[in-house]
């Protein structure tokens, strides 16, 4: 286990010893009197100076959150307070969310970080108060007169440290916003707070390095075009070994009907690569005329965790490349925050995409009217439509060695509203499926605890705590239904949940939805299948045994 996280037995003991979720006694203490304490495992390494320089970002320097002096640039107070003012002018959401909260407490125990840490400042209402308290001090006149009465405070370096800590203990998952009677969305506040912090060089390397890479090479991992191609080609070889079928992806090909974009984690990371193999098998199975771009080789968008301008800058490549290649529409792979960007921001930021056509499935003829303007279709919608029209030859018994449950990714759930398509696909490719308890799925789903760019090794303590509610729900179905596979449609989930499962619920593996599709697809000209895409034996298909069908 990581040196940045306590032993699981220690953490379990800690939970068993405290009687309630809220840790500590606050009878005579206000939250603003509690000092911020950075220790191993609860802060992310700051961006390297060269990363900031390559992006033209403020205040490149060497520092650490544990330092007394954060070397903030001169005039930082003015930068923050003017930055806040200008954002209040540009976003009705921010202004409303700072003004209308009544502190009813409905959100308090809805945050996975609060449930996992018991830290009062992780209650979404207090997270927003971190900014509200400063905003009230600076802005509305009447509250200024009533200072002290209204819970306002001055902007100090301590406040900045607090912001850095707690706006990085929010994964922008929007669960609190589901329960808020006014729909106050902490994700919106966190996004703008991180924008402000970036203005003075208070940042996270695990977010900004991918941003810089993505800008330069087209993807977060910084994979250059030739390596990108090589890696997919090695997956093609693996597919051939396992299935005997040679799939033929093309790259940067002009005139293809569809441009396929997926998070680069699917090309390089384990277990994302198996999901990629699933896509490749599917496209081959239906004979899709598609191409993959090495320039727009990233579905994900860490710009979203940096600033709205950076989100726009990185996202712009998708339409730019679709136009250059002359494709008709774009198909997007399994990813969470990528789809929040594509669904809610892309068309507004970089549209209108009038050079593309309304997506039509070339196999079923289905018109995707729900993507009429953006011209980008989610792979789960696409596959669900294929299955509904019986265009896929599937053998779900090939996934009999998996007892599955489905983890709704936050952004897909609460920033898009896609719940039934992936479940429909999953239940058609795998016979064994059990839902987790109802308060932990669909719109009430719990985050993996590592979203929004926090999936870094040195942050393990907080990640394992924040992931507890999700892990707990998985444990429930593991104990009750012997579930051993957690299926998800998010690249960050695929990267982070294996660690979380190892920590809290050993024995549960993490799968992408299309990996299971790839297992179940009966390909033309395939050899006798005995292993799944991970080269694990499939139950009932072992060598030498008679196949039932």
């Amino acid at each position, binding site marked *: 286990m990581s040196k940045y996280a306590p032993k699981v037995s220690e953490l379990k003991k800690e939970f068993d010893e405290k009687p309630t979720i809220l840790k500590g006694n606050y009878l005579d203490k206000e*939250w603003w009197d509690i000092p911020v304490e950075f220790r191993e495992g609860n802060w992310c390494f700051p961006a390297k100076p060269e990363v900031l320089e390559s992006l033209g970002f403020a205040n490149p320097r060497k520092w650490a959150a544990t330092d007394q002096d954060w070397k903030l640039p001169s005039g930082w107070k003015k930068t923050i307070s003017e930055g806040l003012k200008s954002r209040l002018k540009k976003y009705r959401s921010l202004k409303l969310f700072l003004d209308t909260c009544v502190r009813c407490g409905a959100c308090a125990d809805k945050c996975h970080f609060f449930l996992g840490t018991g830290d009062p400042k992780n209650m979404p209402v207090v997270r927003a108060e971190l900014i509200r308290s400063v905003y009230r001090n600076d802005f509305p006149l009447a509250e200024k007169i009533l200072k002290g009465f209204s819970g306002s405070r001055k902007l100090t370096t301590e406040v900045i440290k607090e912001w850095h800590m707690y706006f990085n203990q929010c994964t922008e998952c929007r669960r609190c916003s589901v329960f808020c*009677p006014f729909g106050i969305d902490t994700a919106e506040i966190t996004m703008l707070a991180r924008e402000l912090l970036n203005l003075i060089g208070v940042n996270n390397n695990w977010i900004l390095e991918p941003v810089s890479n993505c800008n330069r090479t087209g993807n977060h991992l910084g994979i250059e075009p030739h390596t990108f191609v090589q890696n997919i080609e090695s997956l093609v070889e693996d597919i051939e070994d396992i299935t005997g079928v040679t799939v033929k992806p093309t790259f940067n090909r002009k005139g293809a009907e569809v441009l396929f974009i997926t998070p680069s984690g699917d090309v390089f990371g384990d277990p994302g690569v198996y999901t990629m193999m699933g896509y490749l098998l599917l496209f081959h199975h239906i004979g899709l005329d598609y191409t993959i771009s090495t320039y727009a080789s990233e579905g994900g968008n860490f710009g979203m965790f940096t600033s709205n*301008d950076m989100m*726009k800058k990185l996202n712009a490549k998708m339409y730019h490349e679709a136009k250059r290649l002359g494709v008709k529409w774009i198909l997007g792979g399994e990813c969470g925050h990528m789809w929040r960007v594509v669904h809610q921001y892309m068309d507004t930021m970089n549209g209108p995409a009038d050079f593309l056509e309304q997506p039509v499935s070339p196999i079923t003829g289905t018109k995707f009217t729900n993507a009429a303007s953006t011209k980008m279709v989610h792979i789960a919608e696409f596959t669900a439509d294929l299955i509904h029209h019986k265009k896929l030859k599937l053998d779900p018994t090939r996934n009999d060695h998996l007892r599955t449950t489905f983890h709704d990714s936050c952004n897909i759930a609460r920033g898009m509203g896609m719940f039934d398509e992936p479940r429909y696909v999953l239940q058609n490719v795998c016979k064994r499926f059990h839902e987790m308890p109802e308060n932990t799925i669909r*719109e009430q789903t719990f985050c993996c605890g590592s979203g929004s760019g926090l999936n870094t090794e040195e942050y393990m303590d907080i990640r394992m705590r924040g992931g507890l509610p999700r892990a707990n729900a998985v444990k429930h179905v593991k104990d009750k239904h012997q579930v051993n596979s957690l299926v998800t449609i998010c690249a960050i989930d695929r990267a982070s949940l294996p660690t979380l499962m190892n920590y809290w619920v050993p024995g549960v593996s993490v799968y992408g939805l299309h990996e299971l599709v790839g297992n179940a697809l009966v390909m033309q000209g395939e050899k006798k299948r005995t292993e799944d895409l991970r080269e694990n034996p499939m139950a009932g298909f072992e060598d030498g045994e008679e196949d039932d069908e």
Partner: protein
Amino acid sequence: MKKALIPLLMVAVLALIPYIGVRYAGLGYLFGIVIPYSAMAVLICGFMSRMADWLRRPVPFCIPTTCGQEKSLDWIRQDKLESPSSFFYAAARVLSEVFFFRSLFRNTRSELHKGSNLTYGSNKWLWLGGLAFHWSLLVIVLRHARFFFIMVPDSLQYLDDADRFLDVTLPAFYMTDALVLAAVTFLLLRRIRDARMRVISLPTDFFPLFLIMAIVVLGISMRYVTKVDVMPVKALMMNLVNFTFEPPGEIGTLFYVHLFLICVLAIYFPFSKLMHMGGIFLSPTRNQANNSRAKRHRNPWNSAIKFRSYAEYEDDYREKMKKAKLPVEKQ
């Protein structure tokens, strides 16, 4: 609990002001005419300007929080209310929040059990308390409208009759009086007794609760205990709505305290969290349709961004791309 005691003290002091002012200084005109007019002016202008202030700020992105299945393939059932794809259903969603507190109805309470097990039980008390509080206040305000009409309109009379249909005391007891008192007590107690609520509560959360509680208690005691003569009260109110600035007649001092605290509430309203009354209609996570892929949402200030173009990318990687047999634009 300093942050609860200070607001309580403030309300007590505020209550003393008209009591002394009217009883010992004879300032009936000030408290009966001048302050009510000023308070109404502040409330109306303040409320409007706060709303205008919100409305003039743009909504750059389409960011509904989707709490149900989106509109997608024909055969997949959309949750039209929780993931609306049209203006009509988005409006219905907002109204369901306004009238029924739909999101609060979802509320759960998380609990930690042995073996680091978390459970989430249904918890509707806040929803019930909040609903009782707000609806009772609305009915009470509407009931009070009878003071402003010579002939009470039928609809108000029906509401009034319905509210006291129990008919158990003399004068007949209004259910909403009991309800609002119970609800405000509940809302107050949960802020004091629940550890989490204690942490998040500010003096500005206690102040309006104490203020409303005081107003309600005074109203109830005038009706059922001291039995204030309502005729001069009605005369004063009629004068106020008709803008005849005649001095009020003989009215009990308690009434002036009641009226003054209402004025304080009216003045406090536009500058405080009580503005959630208007804000709830504007919340972009609730009032927008989830149709951002079907219909383009426009951002009035869409920032001009220079992104790294394909040409720049190819310039940097052309040789490597050629080696990998990738097509290039320029040789």
